[in-house]
């Protein structure tokens, strides 16, 4: 009988421990801390488009230390990340007319959001100075086309309840990889050719979700 109780207790303990390993803490984005910027080239001048909206959420393994002073463990990090950007929230440096051309090429009516889902997150090492850099793999959906991308992502624990992800170096993407034809608008009788490559940077500040947001 005693043995049975011990086995049962062990089983319960293991189950609880297993459940704990699967538990996450949820973070939601803050309106004043989001910025995504893509920079490109054209035959007349360089351009950029920005959005201050990155929606979605981040769920981190509850055992991951969030105290900025605490040491992070290296290795795989259990996390769920989903990010979305309304395509038409991207505003170009060339004004509204160029925005509209950009939206047409991105088919914003059919594909209103740019989405990202994390597949894998790894922390290979802890730098002596500065924020740790995560190696991530995820799926990026733009214009309805899904591509797997790997990114180096900076991770800053601003406070116990506030975190930030950012790009330490720009990510290079090609429009044609997402079946977007680089715009070639004719403005004022001048034909403009836009380069295929864009360099993307972002900052994404999230706070611990409130009960309502959970």
């Amino acid at each position: 009988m005693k043995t049975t109780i011990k086995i049962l207790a062990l089983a319960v303990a293991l189950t609880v421990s297993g459940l704990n390993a699967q538990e996450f803490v949820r973070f939601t984005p803050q309106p004043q801390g989001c910025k995504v910027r893509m920079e490109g080239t054209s035959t007349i001048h360089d351009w950029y488009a920005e959005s201050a909206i990155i929606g979605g959420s981040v769920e981190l393994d509850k055992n991951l230390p969030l105290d900025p002073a605490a040491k992070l463990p290296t290795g795989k990090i259990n996390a769920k990340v989903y990010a979305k950007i309304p395509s038409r929230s991207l505003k170009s440096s060339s004004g509204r007319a160029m925005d509209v051309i950009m939206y047409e090429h991105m088919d914003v009516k059919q594909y209103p959001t740019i989405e990202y889902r994390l597949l894998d997150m790894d922390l290979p090492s802890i730098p002596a100075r500065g924020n740790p850099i995560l190696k991530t793999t995820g799926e990026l959906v733009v214009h309805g086309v899904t591509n797997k991308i790997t990114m180096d992502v900076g991770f800053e624990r601003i406070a116990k309840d506030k975190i930030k992800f950012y790009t330490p170096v720009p990510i290079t993407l090609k429009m044609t990889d997402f079946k977007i034809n680089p715009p070639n608008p004719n403005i004022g009788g001048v034909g403009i050719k836009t380069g295929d490559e864009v360099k993307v940077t972002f900052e994404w500040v999230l706070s611990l979700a409130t009960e309502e947001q959970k």
Partner: protein
Amino acid sequence: MERIRDNVITKNLNGSIRSNLRNMKDNNKNQVDSSEITRRNFLQNASIATMMAMLGGIELKAAEQTQTQPQQESSPLKRGTPVNCAVIGCGVWGREILTTLSQIPTAPVVAICDNYQPMLNRSKKLAPNAEAFDDYKKLLAKKEVQAVIVATPTHLHKDIVIDALKAGKHVYCEAPLAHTVEDAHAIAKAAQEAVKVNFQSGLQLRSDKQRHFLLQFIRSGAAGQAIKARAQWHKKESWTRVSPNPERQKETNWRLYRDTSAGLIGEIGIHQIDEILWFLMAKPKSVTGFGGILFYKDDREVADTVQAVFQTASGLTINYEATLGNSFDADYEVIYGSDAAIMVRGQKAWMFKEADAPLLGWEVYAKKETFYKDSGVVLRADASKIISHTEGASKESSEPTPLYQALDAFVYNSDLIGTAVEDYASSFDIKDTAALKKFLTEELKNKSIAATAEDGYIATVYALKANEAVEKKTKIDIQKEWFQI
């Protein structure tokens, strides 16, 4: 800023000065309302523009190169997505608005409203696809209506505007905002609190490309120091409308009665007075009124002939005159500077230089027109260059009217705000108004220039106080606190 508020037209400003030309080219620094324009910079760049024109012709069309200026792209795609509009109040002006909206590709009119069926019938011809309502509340309940233009008699604005804002509609409210300061204040306050929608006051001249060109010209100091300003509106017309029956007489002729009308100054003069105060950044400290019912001996209560003299702290006077009894010389505004007078008639303007005024340079090549003994240099965005003196000299203005430009700006800004709010709500807590306001401030940096609720309120207060001064034939000291919203 204070030192240039009144009669000095922005001479000798210190600090970093945006040049006129750069201002035209820089989409991100295009707030032409800026006082940071110096005479030297303006003249320098005007000369550069002349030289450029002679060398091959870059047009000095400020508005076309400035994102916040009204644009004239014909494709709806180039002006954002369409915004479903409704017009409430389908009288003469309401139908003018409908006609104008029909020329704006991004402004489909989906609903019209008037409590008098014949007005609706006439308006249906101008907006054949619009659903007709006799009750504005029913119109506001329609989800597909995104924006409303309120063109009812002035005294009916308040409830309609506030209800429309509450219903989440973008609102264009004709000027004056209301026939009382209290109502105008309530409208302006509601508009400022309605963060999620666009509100525009119907001061259409504020959206006019030609006015923005003049604004820069005047504020650069090109006319010297402001000495005085004057505006007039002369038109021989009774201001009465034929009433179909005695019951509707008062309703049809609401402009003639004190309890419903803001008078000649409030209904007509507000646009001209606002234009001058805006150009000169003047804040009058008092207004003195004269006038009365001199010609039309009917049952009207508001004056058919008025004069109001605004005076600033520094002594600059702005004189406004209007009459329904005589048409001579129609309507215009003049700003008298120590180096030149600038006269504005509709969308045309001229500069009359003093003999001892410094040579600007470009005016040698500019088109001139003779007025009695004076020769006026045509002031247009494209007339101060040699190109307009040659191939374009005989070409008359094809600019859209100020009303078109104002409504176009309204639709454009409504689209910008509407989509920005919708996108924001998809990711963040929309109830956090402070955060939303901050977000929108950044997002709307490139919106088209248009009169705000504050602009409309300030102009309404000045006009109503001037009307009161006329009625009482007295001087009214203008209090700062009246302008707090």
